[in-house]
């Protein structure tokens, strides 16, 4: 134990005595640990995001007006507020097709930027009787019934200081908040058709008319379908198209695979950057340690003359490597935490793909991996550098340069 203490103190004294050199080594370790932690956390968040998105997309098929496919995708993926309408007859026709297990319709409109939340939000009216998409995950967090005058808010919607949300001059109580879905629905507000009718009237009074509120029952924005396992989805699409024209289909599987392609390219960029930074960190540490130990050849030779064994010298340098690696690893981890947690919404908005932070246990694991890897880098590079000096003859080392 005393030998370990002595080695540790010797290592710390060496680190403190040469601050510039130590700073450069710690910086290399910081880069390695930071890259590893941030890279792993980002990758896990992206995988979590697409996993949750897949889980939450309850429908197999989405029917939208012919000219509104991009807008509908925007609502689902980014929460960009949009509105478009088609005849309610599409919903009736779709529900009658063989192979359609359940069908429900939704009505989209938007708030004003000055109303609530500092920005426009997507307002979605759904039918609680037929709904199979929102219902299963509203129930998880609902605090009271979604009655007339109350709404359910997405996880990213912030209510006013009094806990209510305001649309077109009127305030509505929040009946519940949804769990994170990593989709555009996190930025949406959900309500019954009755509440929607009231908001449309308020909007009309303020000069914003989406539809004539008297006609709102005759229009829907989208029809969501769940197709039975044995049904052919293309045949179902064809059948619906024969009965109702002017529509377009969005297949959930295709939507998710499109997102997965985008996510794959983001993940590739992360992998390449992570590998380059880790290799850079390790090579820099090896290079620095070998140059430093080469310069300290005479110091080691003096220690040998004074009776310190080669093994002990190796232990001294190993302590230095471990201390530098661990210190850099911890600093890198702190910097990583300061990047990933406070800026997670900023990263999410910039990447524009489903993004959901991993669990605390996973984050702790990534942090430990980061610190362990840089500590390993530090110990390996110092050990390898000392090993190259171990075979040098003390006498010749002392006389070098004479």
């Amino acid at each position, binding site marked *: 134990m005393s030998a370990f203490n002595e080695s540790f103190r010797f290592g710390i004294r060496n680190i403190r005595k040469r601050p510039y050199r130590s700073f450069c080594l710690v910086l290399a370790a910081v880069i390695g640990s930071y890259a590893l932690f941030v890279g792993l956390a980002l990758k896990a968040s992206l995988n979590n995001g697409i996993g949750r998105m897949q889980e939450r997309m309850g429908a197999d098929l989405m029917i939208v007006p012919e000219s509104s496919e991009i807008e509908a995708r925007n609502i689902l993926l980014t*929460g960009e507020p949009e509105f478009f309408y088609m005849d309610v007859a599409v919903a009736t026709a779709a529900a009658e097709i063989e192979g359609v297990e359940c069908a429900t319709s939704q009505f989209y409109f938007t708030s004003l*930027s*000055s109303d*609530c*939340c*500092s*920005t426009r*939000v997507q307002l979605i009216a759904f039918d609680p009787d037929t709904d199979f998409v929102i219902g299963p995950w509203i129930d998880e967090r609902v605090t009271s019934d979604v009655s007339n005058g109350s709404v359910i808010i997405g996880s*990213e*919607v*912030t209510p006013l200081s009094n806990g209510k949300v305001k649309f077109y001059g009127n305030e509505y109580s929040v009946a519940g908040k949804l769990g994170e879905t990593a989709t555009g629905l996190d*930025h949406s507000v959900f309500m019954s058709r009755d509440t929607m009718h009231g908001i449309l009237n308020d909007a009309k009074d303020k000069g914003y008319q989406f539809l004539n509120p008297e006609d709102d029952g005759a229009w829907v924005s989208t029809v969501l379908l769940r197709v039975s396992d044995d049904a052919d989805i293309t045949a179902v699409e064809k059948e619906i198209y024969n009965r109702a024209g002017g529509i377009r289909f969005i297949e959930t599987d295709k939507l998710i695979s499109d997102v997965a392609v985008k996510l794959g390219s983001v993940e590739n960029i992360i992998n390449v950057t992570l590998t380059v930074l880790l290799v850079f960190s390790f090579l820099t540490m090896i290079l620095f340690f070998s140059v430093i130990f080469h310069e300290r050849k005479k110091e080691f030779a003096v220690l040998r003359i004074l009776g310190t064994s080669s093994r002990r010298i190796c232990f001294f340098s190993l302590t230095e490597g471990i201390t530098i690696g661990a210190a850099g690893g911890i600093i890198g981890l702190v910097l990583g935490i*300061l990047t990933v947690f*406070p*800026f997670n*919404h*900023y990263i*999410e*908005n910039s990447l524009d793909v489903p993004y959901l932070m991993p669990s605390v246990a996973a984050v702790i694991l990534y942090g430990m991996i980061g610190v362990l890897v840089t500590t390993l880098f530090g110990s390996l590079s110092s050990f390898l550098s000392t090993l190259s000096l171990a075979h040098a003859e003390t006498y010749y080392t002392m006389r070098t340069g004479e």
Partner: protein
Amino acid sequence: MNKTKITGIVIAVLGLLTALIPTVIFKVCEAMDGKFMKCHWTSQTEVAVGIATIVLGLLIVVSKEKAAQAAYAVASAINGVLVILIPTVVIGVCGSHDMPCHSGTQPALIIAGSLIIVTALINAVSYVISKKKA
């Protein structure tokens, strides 16, 4: 260069960052329909606090009196607290997580303010310790 002067330089750099975060690095939201949102006023105030912090940091560097350096450090720490409180309590930023001022400017200012407080307190505490030793 002694440690006190280094903390002065760090405080001045953090003051500069405080002024640059809402105006250049993580710009706050643009005016909407010709109307400024509250993050605009947060930005203006943070620029003023940032400049005051730069001045205090430079005063720590040029000052020769240890007591004066500690006093400037305490004033910098108070500025650090202001840097945090302005976007969170005093003025605030836009409510939505999607707005750049909420997702970028606010966390960056909180980190900058925390670093100012920590650096300034290191300076002030080391003065108190050295005074006790003397």
